[in-house]
């Protein structure tokens, strides 16, 4: 199951103007979305591992890209949450 309102936030931030507004004032933008308290806290904490369980992975990636988290940091946080997800693959 997906968290609809978290997904909607991430989806809306695909619009560059909205992403800019969000980077300037997260709290103001978050007021428009009825997020559950624990989800809102995870958003404010950039808790990749927590949020990854709630939304589509592409939306998760778009969201953290929109807030300016470098891919290397994002990937490191994903791997820390699930250090052995798949055997034998070529790693970049």
């Amino acid at each position, binding site marked *: 199951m*997906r968290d*609809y309102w978290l*997904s*909607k936030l991430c*989806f809306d931030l*695909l619009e*560059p103007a909205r992403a800019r507004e969000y980077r300037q004032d997260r709290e103001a933008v978050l007021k428009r979305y009825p997020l559950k308290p624990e989800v809102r806290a995870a958003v404010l904490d950039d808790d990749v591992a927590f949020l*990854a369980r709630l939304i*589509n*992975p*592409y*939306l*998760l*990636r*778009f969201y953290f890209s929109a807030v300016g988290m470098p*891919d290397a940091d*994002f*990937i490191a946080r*994903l*791997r820390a*949450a*699930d*250090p052995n*997800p*798949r055997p*034998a*693959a*070529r*790693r*970049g």
Partner: protein
Amino acid sequence: MAELVGIYAASHGPLIARDWHRLSDALKGRLSAAYGELGRRLSASAAEVIVGLAPDHWTNFFLDNLPSLCIGIGEEHGGPPEPYMRDFTPKALTGDPELGRHILETALTSEFEPALSYRLRLDHGLCLPLSRMKLPRMPRIVPILINELEPPMLSYRRCFAWGGLLRRAIASYAKPARVAILATGGLSHSIGEPTMGEIDEDFDRRCLDALARGEESELIDLLERGAGRAGNGAHEIRNWAVAHAAAGGRGFELLDYLPAPEVYVGCAYAAWRLA
């Protein structure tokens, strides 16, 4: 009567556009050569229309309304909205409403019920390959978007059936038109998953080998069992399956395969054998 003049496939990936200037010269050279060869072949085919098979990267659809299949039957479709695709031209792509509607009606009188759209926005999934192919003239586009991001999705068996239907629809189109199919996406890659940046080269090569031989049941078995473990981006191989079936399963010529962690994608480029 319409004529199917070429069936091609190309990987895509945002970093191939966004980070182009940061990629190594060797990688840029391989990617440019592969896209360029596809562009050369597509131009040589004198295709007037491209049926574009692509995923929708949350550009047109969201959880509110998420069709498994959607056919663009409008006169025009919007170009890519992603900031890193801002240089893409034309800003709007000319559609082919009559062919799009014919494919839709063929589907509705057969065993598929796709959604329709009179104006889709075509994101990097389709526009990045079109851009890198450097076509001297952009053919009309009939986009067919397949849900390859959010489960549940079409089974691979259904994708093969959809490809067969697409072939019949093009063959039964009464107006003269030279039609090409361009499938985009895949092969193995992960986006927003812990395996992001990893490429399952073994799976990719087995997949390409089966595609080259053309054996449909082997391919369906491999894809149904293996694609889900090759990263969520590997769901886009559905487009290759559709193209394969549309070509009649005669196998294909692999133009290049590059496991390219720099762009997070197992990049492959191919042209199917026709008749």
